């Protein structure tokens, strides 16, 4: 359970690439008051947080750029994002793949979170505070979610026993309790093409 945008020093899971771009806080979502549907907020961004956001008007969805926050200057409410394609960061992801638009409740789940599974920026209310990503291409209002990227291996997730490493088996796929809404800390490789190109 995150409760807060991801923070700490191990959010960065690839050495690059880094393409640094600055936007105003109002340009990113879901963040702040009223950032989730139908109400509520995911969290308020602070310097040191590294959530995944979509950028630009929600009217453009799902064709929004995406990025991961590197730094935030709260005096000017300016956000520095890494918008590089194929950058990998550690993020909280909800395993929900579909919502009932009437009840807003989940009615589809990814029960086998595997490398290459698409991950979306999701402003649905079911995502708890601190969480901006899910496996759902549509939010709980039926609007398309921007593609953020794909589940990928974290640095220490590979099965490396064959060369004397510590892992007997890869840590992916993650298999949550069957058809149960589960918050999972995963590494996600971001893309900025709305899924138009393959991996």
């Amino acid at each position, binding site marked *: 359970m995150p409760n807060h945008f991801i923070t700490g020093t191990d959010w*960065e899971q690839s*050495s690059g690439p*880094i393409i*640094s771009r600055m936007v105003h806080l109002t340009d990113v979502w879901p963040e702040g008051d009223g950032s989730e549907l139908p109400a509520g907020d995911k969290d308020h961004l602070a310097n040191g947080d590294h959530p995944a956001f979509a950028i630009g008007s929600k009217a453009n969805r799902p064709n929004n750029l995406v990025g991961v926050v590197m*730094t935030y200057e709260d005096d000017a409410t300016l956000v520095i994002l890494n918008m590089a394609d194929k950058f990998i960061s550690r993020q909280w992801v909800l395993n929900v793949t579909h919502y009932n638009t009437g009840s807003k409740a989940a009615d589809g789940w990814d029960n086998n979170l595997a490398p290459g599974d698409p991950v979306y920026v999701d402003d649905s209310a079911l995502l708890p505070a601190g969480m901006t990503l899910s496996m759902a291409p549509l939010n709980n209002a039926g609007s398309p979610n921007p593609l953020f990227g794909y589940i990928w291996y974290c640095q220490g997730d590979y099965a490396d*026993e*064959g*060369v*004397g490493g*510590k892992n*007997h088996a890869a840590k992916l796929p993650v298999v949550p309790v069957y058809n149960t809404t589960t918050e999972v800390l995963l590494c996600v490789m971001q893309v900025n093409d709305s899924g138009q190109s393959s991996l």
Partner: protein
Amino acid sequence: MRKILSMLQEIRQLQVKAKGGMEAQLAEVADKYRYFDEQLSGITPTSTGTAIEEVMTSADFTYAIQEFIQRLMIPAYQAKRFDFEQFMKPDLTPNFLPVTRYQRRAGLDDLEYVGEKGEARPGSVPDATKRQYKVEVWEKQFDFSMRALVNDDLGYFSDFATAMGQAARASLEKYVSRMLWNATSLAFIVGGGALYFQNGRLTSSRIAEARMAFNQRIDARGNPIAATLKYLVHHAGLVDTVRMIRQSTLIPELATNAANVIAGDFVPVEDPYVAGIAPNLPWYALVDWRATGIVPFVLARRQGIPAPLLLRRKSDVETMTSLTAAGGGVSPLMGDFATGNVVVKIHDEWGTYISANDGNVFDIQGVYYSAGTAA
């Protein structure tokens, strides 16, 4: 000043007394000196107290005094060491390609009786045992923003290079520990039979059993080989058990007066990384490869890389005074031109024998293992 006045008062009173002065004169001297004292100290007969009063307290200075911040680093944890060098055979490889090592692990045929005019039968020579291994690269990179390093007024990163070296050492120690305790290595040893493993918890009797197991080892021809228990690698929770075994004249776990014959005959090595929950704590017995020629495990490094390398990406920034003049160097703290990132990396290279069947056991004749699960 008040002390001097007090001394003058005493001197004068002694003088008056020596000249036969009356009590009234002595009292008068005391009164006068008290007057001096009061004038000098500011304490007058109308004062409310008898001492100097504090008029400005710490709380009166909200910013200058009360806003107190002291930030200090205190010494970090001291990491445990796994002194594996004593039982691990080192080797060097010229590059990253697999190297091959061969070892003669059995002698020639026994001689046989030949009768008169008889002909000697031809002998056979056992093939060498072949082992191949290679070194791999082990690294970890750290990225810092230039501002984070500049803002480090605590010196939190001042010993970061030392910490990088320690991380490399700890990674290597864990690698070696996995060589001993990984499931494939243990399954291979267990497959060797009773002379190679047991499940008993560590006692002096069981160390003796391990030693006697080594003493019965034979080569591929069935000839006894000189395998002698030398090192006892054990879980961190067995340190006192080992001490007791080593310091007892009699076998500590038996209520008899049987002599503890193994007390000083082995070298204990604590492995701080091996897992185990008391009382089921594992242990390992190993031979000394230097004395026996039996190599239990091998650790290879590449020639020229005897220790980890601490690397930093060279800054692509320089100072300038004009567009055409040569530039000047800047502090490495400036990081890269684009974002001010300071990037450092630990690089090390090591490897060992890895087999799908043997695990990392280079020669099973050099090892004896116990899961430590049986009482």
